[in-house]
């Protein structure tokens, strides 16, 4: 009869269609949601900003391709700052408390390593989960 001359079981064309729709929706998800923090397990940092005494002496785009380090001159000696991919840390310091050394690696946007006597601030800027906190 006229109704059953149409396919009613799932055809191969249907399966291709299903695959097409699934891939379209998944790629749409990447396009639309890819830059939001929902997709990142931690807050990505985009830049490491190093300031001494309030002046920005260095801005490094994160994440870096390779592991490298540079030196900062402080009043008690030189500091070595090391970067590796998404992480940054102070690897050599001659200050009194060595707080900056003890902090180790930081990798998330908003984190910072601060040496108060030397007035060195290494801060990771980027997209964070919270934009501002009122107090």
């Amino acid at each position, binding site marked *: 009869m006229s109704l059953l001359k149409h*396919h009613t*079981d799932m055809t191969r064309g249907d399966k291709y269609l299903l695959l097409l729709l699934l891939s379209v929706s998944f790629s749409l998800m990447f396009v*639309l949601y890819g830059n939001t923090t929902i997709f990142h397990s931690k807050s990505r940092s985009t830049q490491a900003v190093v300031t001494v005494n309030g002046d920005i002496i260095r801005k490094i785009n994160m994440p870096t391709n390779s592991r490298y380090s540079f030196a900062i001159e402080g009043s008690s000696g030189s500091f070595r700052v090391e970067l590796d991919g998404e992480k940054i840390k102070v690897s050599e310091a001659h200050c009194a408390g060595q707080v900056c050394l003890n902090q180790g690696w930081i990798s998330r946007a908003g984190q910072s390593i601060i040496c108060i006597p030397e007035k060195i601030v290494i801060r990771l800027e980027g997209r964070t989960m919270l934009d501002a906190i009122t107090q």
Partner: protein
Amino acid sequence: MRLNTHRLVFLSLLIALGTSLHLVEMLLPLPLPLPGVKLGLANIVTLLALYLYGFRDGVTVALLRVFLGSLLGGTFLSPAFLLGICGAVVSTAAMALLLRHTKCFSTIGISMVGAVSHNIGQILAASLLLQSRAVLYYLPVLLLTGIPTGVFTGYILKSLMEHIEKSGALKGFTQQEN
């Protein structure tokens, strides 16, 4: 003459069915807090009308079912009504296109396309209505939920069509595809 009366009666039946399905869907709550996700049961009726009578009657059934359904359900001329009209038109057009010009898709595939295009039509209408692009962020979710609901309604229509054939209930009602 005979065919016209039969066609009128059956189309009216389909519209009534579609309306009641529309109303039933309004009452069905979802386990997830996803607005706009529906089972799309009324698409069964639209697709059946397309199969039996072609594009013009299919669109008539679709539009009238949104009309009557929203009238009876209290959403007449509301935003949901406008979204429903838009979704129904896009969905019917997409299903009719596939039906008319291709032979390789089954009921299930066409129903799936109908559900997905219904959602796409609704989102486009919503973004026009709200003059905002933010609504489009909801598109992947609706696409992904539209696929299983479309397949589900496709299977329902498949068994419905097979049952109709077997019982011979519509011997005088179907017309040749034109």
